[in-house]
Each structure stands twice: as C-alpha cells, then as structure tokens.
C-alpha cells in the first residue's frame, strides 16, 4: 500500500494527538455521572471547599487516565448548605431527577446519615468520608473511606495516649475538655474509659456547647486543675479559641491533644506548638513516596491557593476525599460495572490501597473493629508532622 505524504502527516498527527491527549481520546461515549452534595455554605463550608478542590482534581485525573470503563466521568455537585434535611432532598433529586449512575459522600455525620437513608431506599452504594459514629451506620451498602475503626471511642483515645506516653514527660494527670459536638463528644466519653484502664488520673472533666464564644472561664478552670495533659475533645476553630483564652491568663498546658483542629489557624499560634491531633495523611514522606500522590499534593497546593484556602497542604480532610475516589475507581474498574449491588459485593470481599493505607470492610457493619488507619500528628516548628506510629512518622520526626 502506498502511503502518500498527506496520509503520513495525518497519521503522525493523530499519533501525536493520542500521546498528548490520551484521556480525551480514550474516554468516550456518554459520561458516567457521579452525584454528591457538599456543605458549600453554612457552618461546614470551610471544610467543604477542601473536599471540593480535592474531588475536582480526582475527577480531572480520572478523565486524563481514560475515565471509568472508557467513559468520561462527570461529577454532579450540589450545595447542601450544611443542612442534613436538605442533603436528603438533594440525594433524592440526584438519584431520581438527575439519574446519576453512582453517588459519592456528603460531608459530616448528620448529612451522611441523611444520605444513607436515601441510598438505602434506592439500593445505591454510599461511600462516605467523615462518619463519626459508626454504630449508626446500619445500611448494608455503606462503606467508609476515611480509615476509621468500628469503635473510634476506643481506638482513637488509645492512639493519642500511646503517643502521649512517648512524650519526654509522659502525662499522669489529664484534663478532659470536650465540645458536645456528637462525634468528638462520643470519642471523649470513650477517652475517659481508656484513661482509667491505662491508670491515668482525670483531674478535670468539662463539657461545653458547640459554638461556644467565651473560653475564659474554661481556660481558668484548666489552669487551676493544672493537668499534665489537656485532652481537647475539640474540632474546627475551638482549640484555637481555647488556647487564645489560656494565653490571656498566661497559661499553657504542658502537653495537649485536640481531636480534629482546623489545621491552618493552629499553625500560627505559638501556644499550639507541640499539640497532638489525629490524622490519616500529612504531606511528607512516607506518604508522598508514591509519585502519583506527590503530584496530587503539588496540584492540591496550587488549586487550594487559587481557591483561597489558607492551609494549602494535603491533610486529613483532603486525603479522605481522595481515598473515596480511589475506592470508587478501584471498585468500578475491578467489577467493570456500574451496578451498585455488584460494586457493594466486591467491596465487602476485597481491599483497596489508598494514599493513607489499605481499606477493608470485612468487619461489623462494613467496618473493622479495633484497628484503623489513623495516626497521631504533632505541630512542630509551625508544621504538622505524623509522629505515631513510627512507620508513618515524618523522616527524623520525634515526639517533643
């Protein structure tokens, strides 16, 4: 067959295009539509923006790799305004009116519980990122992608106290100050039991309403109790407000942990240095040894900056969202199916390697009891680094 110059150029051009834009050429046909909500407005919006930026990167990468089952992926996102009742309605709409093929996670326990009810009604698999009370997850086709255990009220306090025991001065007396925000409160209640079993002494136990404005009296009570270690059953901005109130009365706890602090504001606070917190992922080796993950960390940093997110490192929040898309891609690819029952059955029998460890769902209510993928991080010299367990610790990092 004679190949003329024009045909040769056309073939060469096509080949070059295929190399340059493999995803565009490979992902063809009707898009696979994946629906979810996030609290883009309302009290949880500061965290939702992290999830949104992460998911956009995941979908973009997925499409660059050829989409799912050779089809492009389209993410249908709705704003649930941090309202569980609206989440329920929006998932109904996503499934019935938008006829999405699969659904993804909303954010936070109450909204996930609302979405779970809808998923159950329509027999949809629900992957979820941030469900704080696993015992309430009764639906057979819900699967957590956060690396949480079935019993966080037992496992997570042990992580914290294991790490605290390795501090230069291991604590003997503990002050527990906890918000009544449901998930952190449940973990703090568990912490009291764990403490007793470990022979630690509780010198103070305080509970305050979520959304508390004045931490002055709480700070004074902690100062007066003079504990070796402050257990903060806190999330979001609460630990910052608490530590600022302590600073005003010239007090700093000798050692402290806060369950899920907003990472950015803590960095700027000298009083927060040395604080422990829970995480699944931090932007350092060994997490970033995988070049794909290292690239994600880099891309996230750029996109987060563009989106005006003050803390631009990948940590717990972005990692659990990324893992959720890893799980979805693995399950669809392995089953070559979009059928929820097929995907659900596969997840129960298999495991998925994510950026923060291997997820399994072979225990009670699709969780694993007594074990998880959470780690303890510490704020050191203005940076969060994993310090416990040692196999996930940042190179050279030690508890200080």
């Amino acid at each position: 067959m004679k190949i003329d110059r024009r045909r040769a150029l056309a073939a060469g051009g096509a080949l070059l295009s295929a190399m340059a834009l493999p995803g565009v050429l490979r992902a063809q046909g009707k898009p696979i539509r994946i629906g979810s909500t996030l609290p883009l407005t309302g009290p949880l919006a500061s965290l939702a923006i992290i999830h949104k930026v992460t998911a956009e990167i995941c979908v973009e990468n997925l499409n660059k790799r050829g989409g799912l089952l050779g089809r492009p992926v389209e993410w249908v996102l709705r704003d649930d305004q941090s309202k569980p009742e609206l989440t329920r309605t929006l998932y109904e709409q996503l499934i019935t009116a938008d006829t999405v093929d699969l659904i993804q996670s909303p954010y936070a326990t109450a909204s996930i519980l609302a979405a779970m009810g809808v998923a159950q009604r329509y027999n949809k698999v629900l992957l979820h990122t941030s469900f704080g009370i696993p015992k309430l997850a009764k639906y057979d086709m819900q699967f957590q992608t956060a690396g949480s255990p079935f019993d966080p009220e037992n496992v997570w306090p042990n992580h914290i106290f294991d790490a605290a025991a390795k501090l230069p001065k291991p604590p003997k007396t503990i002050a527990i100050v906890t918000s009544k925000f449901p998930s952190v409160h449940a973990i703090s209640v568990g912490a009291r039991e764990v403490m007793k079993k470990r022979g630690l002494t509780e010198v103070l136990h305080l509970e305050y309403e979520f959304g508390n404005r004045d931490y002055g009296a709480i700070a004074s009570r902690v100062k007066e109790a003079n504990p070796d270690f402050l257990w903060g059953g806190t999330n979001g901005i609460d630990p910052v407000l608490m530590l600022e109130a302590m600073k005003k009365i010239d007090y700093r706890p000798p050692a402290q942990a806060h369950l899920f602090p907003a990472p950015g504001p803590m960095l700027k606070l000298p009083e927060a240095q040395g604080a422990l917190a829970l995480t699944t992922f931090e932007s350092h080796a060994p997490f970033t040894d995988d070049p794909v993950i290292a690239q994600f960390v880099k891309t996230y940093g750029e996109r987060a900056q563009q989106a005006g997110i003050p803390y631009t490192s990948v940590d717990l929040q972005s990692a659990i969202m990324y893992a959720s898309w890893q799980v979805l891609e693995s399950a669809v690819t392995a089953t070559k199916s979009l059928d929820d029952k097929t995907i659900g059955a596969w997840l129960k029998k298999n495991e998925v390697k994510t950026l923060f460890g291997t997820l399994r769902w072979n225990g009670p209510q699709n969780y694993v009891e007594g074990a998880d993928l959470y780690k303890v991080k510490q704020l050191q010299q203005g940076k969060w680094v994993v310090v416990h367990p040692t196999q996930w610790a940042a190179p050279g990092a030690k508890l200080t």
Partner: protein
Amino acid sequence: MPSATLLGQSVLSGVFIGALYGLLGLGLSLSWGMLRQVNLAHFALAFLGAYVTFQLAAVAKIDPFVTLAIVAPAFFVLGMALHWFFLRFSVTLLNTLLVTFGITSIIEAGIQWYWTADFHRMENAYAAVRWKLGPLFLALTDVITLGFALALALGAWAVLRFTDLGKAIRATTEDAPIAAAFGVNEKLLGFLVSGFAASVAAVAGLCLALNHTLAPVQIYAWMGVVFAAVMMGGLGRPIGPLVAGIVIGVSEAVTMAVTNPTWAPLVSFSLLIVILLLRPARFS
C-alpha cells in the same frame, strides 16, 4: 469550691465578653427603639467591618485602629443607605426583620465569596499585651473592647440626654408628628441614627477582629445572646444593652467556673426570662 482566683478571672472574662455583647447590641437597640427597625443585618455589618479591618490590617498593613478612620465613616454612609432603602420602600417593623435577614444572607455570601468560608485571624501586636493584677490577668484587646463599649454607650446616652440633637431624637421617637410640628427634621435624624448604628457596628467589627478568629458563619452565633442583651437592656437605651450584656457575660462565665460549662446558655436565657417578667413597666 472554685478558688477566688478562678472566680475573679471568670468574672473578668464575663465582663469583657459582656462588653462585646453590649457593643454589638448598642446599634441594634438604637435602630430598633428609635427607628422601629429590627436590623438583623447589624450582625452582618459588624462581621463585614471585622473582615474589612482584617483586610486593611493584614494586607495593606494599616494599624487596626487607624482602619477605623476609613471603616467607620464608610459604614456611616452604608447605614444611611440602608435607612433610605427602608424609607423608600416603606418597610414595616415586622418586614425589617425579614428584609434584614435577607441582607444578612447576602452579606454573608459576599464575605464567603471574597474571603472564603475558612477561618481568618488578624495577627496584631496588641494581642500579645497583657497585665498582671495580683493573681488576675488583663488582656489589652479585652480592655480596649470594654473601653469602646463604655465610651460609645455613655457617649450616646449623654448625647440623647443632654443635647438638643438628643432631645429631638427622643421627641421623634415619642411622637414624630408632634416633633415635626416643632420643627424637628425627622428624616434627617433617622439617617443620623442609622448611620451612627452602622458606625458602631464597624467599631464592634474592629473588636471582633482583635479578639476572635473570623468565619462568615459566625454572624449567626452572636444573634441569640445579643438579642437577649438588647431585650434585657431595653430598646433605644444606649447603656441598657451594655449592662445587660455584662450581666449575661458574667452569669455565663461564673456558671462555667462553678458547674459544667454546658449550663451557661441555660442560665443566661433563664435570667432573661426572669428579668423580662419582673422588670418594672417603665423599663420595657
């Protein structure tokens, strides 16, 4: 039993947070009592003021107190514009509640659009200054808040009590047509009161930025307790919200010091009910 130091420090903490309640409540009380406008947007304006202060201080590197020279006059104009809107569309008392709730949502969305929903903290040298009085500590930013609250509340009270302008405003509040018959310019006074209330929101915004980490959604966190302070203090009474705010703040702080902090809101709102029930009619 809590120690005297714990109680003393808690009372101080309650006074300072109460001063902020009073500062936020001052503008609300004046516009409610004198203009018959339940201005929920006052909270949003205070947070907008806080964010603008943050922006000018953190980005443009202007001293937070110097920013007041820009923000307070700008808010005065904003307050007058809001009053013009209410007059132009003849918004009734009940409808001001609904309209200003809508304005609050719009301002919140605007703040979130520009500054994102994430937390922002204004780093400032004033936050590091504190004094020791025996076993008790005083933070400069708290003292400044109390100073502003006292100065503005007493200043507004003195103007209303002792000046012709204040007498005209009070007369208009009592009976606008009769006041007008005596030559009082009701419209102009309305604009002045509304502008002043918005300027007070700007000052409250500065104090919020000095003392607190900012997030758009926190606009709503202050509404309940400041409303309580305004109701307890009396509508249109400049000193009332400050006194009531301090009573609420101290009662919350002492509750937190002696029992579980979860009881604090219950105590303050129970106090509101008791005071509203027992208050003499002349203070209502």
